[in-house]
């Protein structure tokens, strides 16, 4: 006869032949769940995009309509950087000499020091009493950052990428301008004299 086991066992005799209901554990084996959880975690870690692309601004100047509209830069503050193939960088300060004695070769690691040194020189040569400096300083007022920029306002970097250089090189050098806070720079077409000089240097270097 089916009856509920009241548990008191009052009227029942305990002993052999009396079946006892098996106590089931309320615990669940969580191992498969953990397995699945970590499988999904690994999947999402791998698909997650680690670096989201960022945008870098590039402003190009308008084509000057007349020749005399072209910006004139001070000789002392000009630095011309040329990008060659195999990540080589060539540079000269001021104007290129006839005998090309100031034409130098470096790498992307070295160019930063060149820019830093040039900037230091420009700041050292800063003349606060010159009319241009006075104008800049009065415009800057008390803004410390602007005042610092005034000191290096004569600094101008001309970037001339050779047809052999890569897009990465161009972005790297533009980035170098941001890193070293050079405010005035321009991307300019390379001249024939410069391409020939680069070719000659490459030959001499056995490349």
């Amino acid at each position: 006869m089916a009856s509920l086991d009241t548990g008191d066992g009052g009227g029942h005799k305990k002993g052999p032949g009396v079946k006892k209901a098996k106590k089931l554990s309320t615990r669940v084996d969580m191992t498969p769940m953990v397995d699945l959880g970590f499988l999904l975690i690994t999947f999402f870690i791998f698909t997650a995009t680690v670096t989201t692309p960022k945008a870098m601004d590039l402003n190009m100047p308008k084509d000057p309509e007349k020749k005399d509209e072209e910006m004139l830069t001070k000789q002392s503050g000009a630095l011309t950087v040329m990008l060659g193939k195999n990540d080589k960088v060539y540079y000269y300060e001021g104007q290129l000499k006839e005998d090309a004695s100031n034409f130098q070769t470096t790498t992307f690691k070295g160019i930063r020091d060149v820019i830093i040194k040039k900037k230091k020189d420009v700041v050292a040569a800063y003349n606060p009493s010159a009319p241009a400096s006075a104008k800049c300083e009065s415009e800057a007022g008390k803004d410390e950052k602007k005042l610092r920029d005034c000191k290096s306002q004569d600094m101008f970097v001309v970037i001339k990428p050779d047809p052999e250089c890569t897009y990465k090189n161009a972005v790297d050098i533009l980035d170098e301008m941001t890193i070293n806070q050079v405010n005035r720079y321009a991307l300019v077409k390379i001249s024939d004299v410069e391409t020939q000089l680069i070719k000659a240097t490459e030959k001499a270097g056995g490349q």
Partner: protein
Amino acid sequence: MPSVKIAKKSTDTDMTPFVDIAFLILSFFIMATKIKAPEPIRTTPPHSVSSKDLPVKEAIYIVIDDQNRVFLNIPVENGTDKIKSIISNINTARGLNLTAAQMDNFAKVPMVGAPLSQLGTLLSLSDAQRAKVIQPGIPVTDTLNNELEWWVGAARTAFAGGKLKFMIKGDEKSKFPTFEGVVNALRKNEEYKYFLVTSQEQAPAGTEMYNSQQRGDKVQ
């Protein structure tokens, strides 16, 4: 004398906290992951210290791949009517005689990397077939026949009055003349401001930018 009984310990561990943590991390990754639309052309952008986010709307991508091929990619976020207006603009400007069906086909997958002369044949294919075709890229290096110029012009007309942004997404291995060709095409259309797509890196220690970040200057 009763012997000391060592209590029998269960080898079972309570896994509940473990599961809790696992699912917490899991939910974090699910939330943080952005499902990215598969890119038609794979490019590895160069690194830069720039930290600006990419605009999504009113943006047109000019992609340069590692073989110096140029593609024009108009994200679908721009809206179908804009994309249709671009293709119809270029159709009338260059007299391509594209059919309405071909233009609709373009609006479905708005990515092109072929000279204008091949555009008709390309757009007659189905989407799946089009994905398989190896496109030669839009010609840009020839200064007399810079076809990207027409595309940029068509896009500018379509977005007239809006703030259309041109994004240049170059592969780091692509050569400079291709990039120059792209810039020339934009310049001919009087576009002087572009965004270069890069992946971010930190400013190297000891440089001026690093110092000003430490000082907390505002960086433009």
